[in-house]
């Protein structure tokens, strides 16, 4: 990626075009000869899976938008019209609704992978921050998309979340009125949410391009966390090696996706969203989609409204500071025995918060939510800064090639023994 491409097209027409717009060279250097570390595991396939999901969401979303009516009295029935009367409308809608969940599932795996293997550390800070921006844009997009069917949970979810801004002192109320386009969530709110829900995915595409660009400048991190020392010994070309591996991972991911779409399409949704929005009837429990639950739990753990809002946004914003909060020189968690314990504690805390976010904020749920929220923030603000100072890491492999050798042991040797005979 860095530096001018050495790519020369085979055909004369290709060479003519390449000397005018070197797009072939760009693709060639980014997705064909681009060196990828040999020791990547399947957690590294989630970047490709996320690109696939982004494209899938945009395609299904654009077609759905052709049939959807963003008007408060017609939105709900237009979605039912898609489900009942549009050819394969049920398929498009279930793909899109479950696709959002799959997208978030993949992004959480992707983020946790980065956190475990220290992918945010120098020189990948900008790459990481671009990722945090993509995550924020995804959350905004998903939230607005969930409002569009105009069911009970759409309406009340929108009311609760937009109302958070009213916690800001002085300017809060005017901001909420401005967001709503009126004095409550209503048709103007639905209209602007639809416009933004259509716009934001393309902004995500833009930031994803920057994210991939930054990735291809620094090169990928890898499970050993040691930098590529020799392109020849430590890496393999993107095509065919990463291409085929990612393709396999994507198809396995599609199996999971299809399971939800075809067999349990409503499992991840809320039953209340099959009731048309009614401003006069509040649902018993207003619960966001599962992928927002950990942040919702943090919001409700703080007794003050403003404090809760700050904590919730802070819990996401803090990710952007991770490169400077982690003081350890060692990238990969594989070589950090203590870090591993705290990291898996963090994963459990995040999932625990997710569970608590779905429960009413009362009694022991609140206490547990507060404890886990404290751990969530302590992980970033106390544990990671101190751990780097006190922890004794394990010995790192000298190179990526050494890491591959050390890992496979006998299986690799067996493969090597066969290799000469097959190659002749």
């Amino acid at each position, binding site marked *: 990626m860095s530096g001018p491409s050495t790519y020369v097209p085979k055909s004369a027409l290709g060479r003519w075009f390449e000397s005018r717009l070197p797009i072939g060279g760009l693709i060639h250097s980014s997705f064909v000869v681009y060196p990828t570390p*040999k020791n990547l595991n399947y957690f590294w396939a989630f970047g490709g899976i996320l690109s696939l999901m982004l494209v899938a969401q945009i395609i299904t979303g654009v077609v759905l938008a052709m049939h959807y009516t963003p008007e408060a009295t017609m939105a709900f029935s237009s979605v039912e019209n898609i*489900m*009942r009367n549009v050819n394969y409308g*049920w*398929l498009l809608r*279930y793909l899109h609704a479950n696709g959002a969940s799959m997208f978030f599932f993949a992004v959480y795996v992707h983020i946790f992978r980065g956190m475990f293997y220290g992918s945010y550390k120098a020189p990948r800070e900008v790459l990481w921050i671009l990722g945090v921006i993509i995550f924020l844009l995804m959350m905004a997009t998903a939230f607005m998309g969930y409002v569009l069917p105009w069911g009970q949970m759409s309406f009340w979810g929108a009311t609760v979340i937009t109302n958070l801004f009213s916690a800001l002192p002085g300017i809060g109320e005017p901001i909420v009125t401005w967001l709503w386009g009126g004095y409550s969530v209503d048709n103007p709110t639905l209209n602007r949410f639809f416009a933004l829900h259509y716009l934001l995915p393309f902004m995500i595409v833009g930031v994803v391009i920057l994210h991939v660009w930054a990735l291809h400048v620094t090169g990928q991190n890898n499970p050993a966390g040691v930098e590529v020392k020799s392109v020849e*010994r430590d890496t*393999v070309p993107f095509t*065919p*090696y990463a291409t*085929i*591996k990612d*393709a*396999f991972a994507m*198809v*396995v991911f*599609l*199996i999971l996706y*299809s*399971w*939800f*779409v*075809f*067999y*349990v*399409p*409503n*499992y991840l949704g809320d*039953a209340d969203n*099959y*009731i048309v929005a009614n401003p006069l009837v509040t649902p018993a429990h207003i619960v966001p989609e599962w992928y927002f639950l950990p942040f919702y739990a943090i919001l409700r753990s703080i007794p003050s409204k403003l404090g809760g809002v700050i904590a919730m946004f802070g819990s996401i914003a803090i990710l952007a500071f991770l490169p400077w909060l982690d003081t350890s020189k060692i990238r990969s968690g594989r070589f950090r025995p*203590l870090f591993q*314990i*705290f990291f898996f*504690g963090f994963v*459990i*805390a995040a999932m*625990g918060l997710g*569970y608590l976010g779905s*429960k*009413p904020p009362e*009694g*022991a*749920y609140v*206490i*547990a939510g507060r*404890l886990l929220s404290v*751990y969530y923030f302590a992980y970033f603000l106390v544990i990671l800064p101190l751990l780097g100072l*006190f*922890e*004794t890491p394990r010995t790192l492999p000298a190179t990526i*090639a050494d890491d*591959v*050798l050390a890992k*496979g042991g006998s299986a*690799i040797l067996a*493969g*090597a023994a*066969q*290799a000469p005979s097959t190659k002749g």
Partner: protein
Amino acid sequence: MTFRTHTLGWLTAAAASLLLSASLLSVPVSAQEGAHEQPTPARQSWTFAGPFGKFDRAQLQRGFQVYKEVCSNCHSLSIPFRTLAQPGGPEYSEAQIKALAASYKVKDGPNEAGEMFERAGRPSDNFPWAFANEQAAAAALGKSPPEMNLLAKARKYERGFPLFLIDPFIQYQELGPDYIYALLNGYSKADDPNYNDYYPGHKIAMGAPLSDGVVTYTDGSPQTLQQYAKDVASFLYWAAEPSMEARKKMGFRVMVFLIIFAGLLYFTKKKVWADVHGDAVTTH
């Protein structure tokens, strides 16, 4: 050495807080169930459950009969008549649907004179509602009854931890029909027609709508409350999810394709990567 004790302290603190939160998590689940006081609806066996589930046509037709003779007096069902003839549903014949639609009066207009008029229903019309609007229904019944076309997807009950984690694997999607069945069988107090075991808060505006013998079946099925409840719950699930059979049928094909494709890709990947590790050894 001081480092060791320091880190050990961290560890025990982390472990303790995790254990504490875990124990806190396990307590309120049972406490909460006690507070709600609604029994959990029993899981029924439905012909449409599972990856190969299909609706029982005769059951859907009986369920429609229950809807038409009982539910439709209060509840609306805004789906077109024609859907009852579609594949994957009750599958009435076109002629039957034409006759059914014609038996209803539908408001249409305005005509050339600018007036609204009534005409016989056509298969493309929605089932008309017994009330002009929600306000009229609320005035007559005390509370406007819920629309029925999505009712079976708009109702659920709490599965609780850890069952809700198992549901996607066992493909349990029939919470709505199970709840409706339980509710229709849940009028347990003879002296209070508005008391229901399963309704949140127990006070339901709808008095027991069904009892043994209120609908006369022509196919010899038992004319009991349980049978009516089961038939109408099935019908409502079809009404909420009319494309379910097509969806599961396509799902199976997609799954077979993806699994074979994944297998082929796996072996291709193995072949492509086979020489990578070998090279690493030889160059070493």
